């Protein structure tokens, strides 16, 4: 022990107790990392000194799996990309393949895809906001939102036969035409959506605790968002009004009157609000789409190279039998070439880059998963924050393991 006078007082760290940063592994099996991701943290008390995000635990080889079946057999796989809004993935992939084939589905089908897709977007945003609220300890709004999400799933179940993994898209159309009650069912659930969004706002947005938890936490600046290629609600929360539905309208989105909500600070609060408001805008789109959607007319393109023939014809005519056989055994022949198609998924620009060698099997399917870019930017949002802020920030990025890790 040296005398105090002998100590070098200029370097005060010599006087302090040795303080190492605490390493903490969050995940891959952590209750709050929905999806499996591992966050390797270095903690200085409660403050995050360094963070290493390690995704990949849900990698199932989606892109490679696509190369072993027919084009239509990819649909069940895309269901399992963003499993919170599978219908948007179905639509996105169908549009990509149809783009390479150079076909456009009939108008009624385009509206049908918009309707189902927007319902899926509402469930996606609701789930994300609900999870963010729950991670802040507010369990009540979580269950309110989940309740209405379930009613939307009821509608989707009536239409597609499955609540979550619909596998409902087809190249050149949909697996089945709309049910006669589609419009009534959707119109019945839309007021409930608006109601629960309003309830959530009254319960949370005037609550000092909630505001203190989300305002100014997990900030992503506009420049950083652009650098990381972030899209979707996370980008829009920083103030950039990029929405594929407006920027590059596909389907019939150019016929609808809707707004793209933007934030200004890029924090958790803005992301929460952007998603809530987009839910409202989706309701607006749905109302217009239902009003404009024709009640009859074909759903599938009239092209025997893409669409399976009528079952009754398969049993009675040789042409239909052969067409059925060829489509089932060899799949839809997609012309040789490359194609990139982007749609607005739940988390942002959902891109499918497909390469065909002219056979019935995809040569390459590459997905641009929107939340992957958000997750990369996550390192910026977490850095310097508190341990407790990681989880809601992570929730508002809405990293979906299936989509991110593929």
């Amino acid at each position: 022990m040296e005398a105090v006078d002998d100590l070098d007082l200029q370097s005060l760290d010599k006087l302090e107790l040795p303080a190492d940063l605490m390493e903490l592994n969050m995940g891959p099996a952590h209750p709050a990392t929905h999806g499996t991701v591992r966050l390797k943290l270095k903690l200085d008390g409660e403050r995050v000194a360094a963070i290493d995000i390690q995704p990949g635990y849900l990698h199932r080889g989606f892109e490679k799996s696509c190369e072993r079946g027919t084009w239509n057999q990819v649909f069940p796989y895309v269901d399992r990309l963003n499993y919170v809004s599978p219908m948007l993935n179905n639509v996105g992939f169908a549009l990509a393949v149809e783009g390479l084939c150079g076909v456009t589905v009939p108008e009624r089908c385009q509206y049908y895809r918009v309707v189902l897709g927007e319902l899926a977007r509402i469930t996606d945003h609701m789930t994300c906001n609900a999870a963010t609220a729950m991670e802040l300890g507010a369990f009540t709004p979580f269950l309110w939102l989940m309740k209405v999400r379930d009613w939307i799933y009821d509608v989707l179940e009536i239409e597609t036969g499955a609540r979550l993994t619909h596998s409902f898209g087809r190249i050149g159309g949909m697996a089945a035409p709309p049910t006669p009650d589609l419009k009534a069912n959707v119109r019945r659930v839309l007021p409930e959506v608006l109601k629960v969004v309003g309830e959530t706002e009254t319960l949370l947005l005037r609550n000092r605790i909630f505001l203190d938890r989300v305002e100014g936490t997990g900030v992503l600046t506009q420049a950083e968002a652009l650098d990381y290629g972030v899209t979707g609600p996370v980008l829009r929360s920083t103030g950039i009004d990029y929405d594929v539905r407006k920027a590059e309208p596909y389907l019939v989105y150019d016929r609808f009157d809707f707004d793209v909500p933007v934030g200004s600070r890029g924090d958790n609060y803005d992301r929460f609000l952007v998603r809530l408001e987009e839910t409202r805008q989706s309701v607006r789109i749905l109302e217009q789409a239902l009003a404009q959607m024709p009640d009859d007319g074909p759903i599938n393109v009239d092209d025997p190279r893409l669409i399976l023939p009528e079952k009754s014809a398969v049993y009675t005519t040789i042409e239909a039998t052969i067409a059925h056989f060829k489509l089932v055994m060899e799949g839809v022949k997609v012309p040789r070439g490359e194609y990139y198609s982007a749609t607005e998924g739940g988390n942002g620009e959902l891109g499918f880059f497909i390469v065909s060698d002219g056979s019935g099997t995809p040569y390459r399917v590459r997905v641009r998963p929107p939340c992957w870019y958000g997750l990369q930017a996550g390192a910026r949002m977490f850095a310097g924050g508190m341990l407790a802020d990681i989880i809601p920030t992570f929730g508002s990025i809405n990293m979906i393991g299936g989509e991110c890790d593929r």
Partner: protein
Amino acid sequence: MSASLSVGQALLAAAGKSTFILGLVFAIAPLLVWAERRQSAMIQDRVGPHRASIRLFGRDWRLIGLLHPFADSLKMVWKEDFIPPGADKVLHAFAPWISLAPALFGLAIIPFGPAIYFEHLGDTLMLSPQGVPCVAGLANGVLGCTAAASPLATELQVATLDAGILLFFAAGGLGVVGAALGGYASNNKYSLLGGMRAAGQMVSYEVTLGLTLVGPLLVFGTLRPEEMVRWQSSSVFTWGFFLQPLAFILYFVAAMAETKRVPFDVPEGESELVGGYFTEYSGMKFGMFFFAEYVEVIALAAIAATFFCGGWQVPLLTDAGFVLGQLHVPMSHGSVTALRVGGFVIKVLVLIWFQLMVRWSLPRFRYDQIMRLCWRYLLPLSLLNIVVTFAVIVWLRS
């Protein structure tokens, strides 16, 4: 007064009172589990507990989910008692006890009813002009004392101590040890973080908790809970809630922080800390932490009822029965006592209900925000409350 009871009688009375208060807690705690589930289900627009059933007389009895707490405790008893490798086995086993025991211990000072005269259960009692209890009767058409009451009275309170409320603080102060030890002994970083958070939070809020009660102590001029309740007897407006509204609010906030429930549940912080300090606890050891939380909720409500809501006082009910102006409904000492104990239980239940409402409506604070709330807002406000109370009392007496 109780000095004149024989040792046997005193022991019997103490045993009876302990049984009552423990029975109350052990009855309310499972009910609280049920109420919490039922109430949260109502708030959250869902069905709630309704699965557990018992088969009797050829049909399944679900009893609106009341069986769930029993199913829960059975589950906890039968679950594996897991001790993580590398954990400090002794401390790991002790921590739940250290958490639970002080919470129960603190309830000893709660007066759940007035002094009871076992010999006069059938008589109507009243206070004589000298302030001594006596047997009341009609003399010349006016209610008055007819005979002196027997001096054999028992306070309905397990421990009648001069230190009174200080014992509650002393016991409550130990609760933090359980949480901190549980976090420390588990050999898990999440537990450790939870334990540290619990220690920091509880120690901080204990300061505010103690200071908020100084205001009422100045007003009542005693540390003895039973004396405080008597002080609040003259009318509803002498209840602590009206005399010390700020202290009531501050006390409630600080006490909720002590119970470590939402919005102050950062020590558990299930989203980031998995389970906080009891991450590594299973079976009945976890059950004890769980139970301790509910006992703390009950204790909070009981103290709030005693200090701020008149304890066992029922509005308009005097020793001699209901009195409203000229109207007088005489009642026997036994029924008055029963009503008062019932009134106390109802007050406690209402205060518990209020805590559940808060629990299911609010999100969670962040750790630093909790500390800021405590040291920057609650503590100065509670000090201000003391100063103002003191000034007013001095002014009134001069």
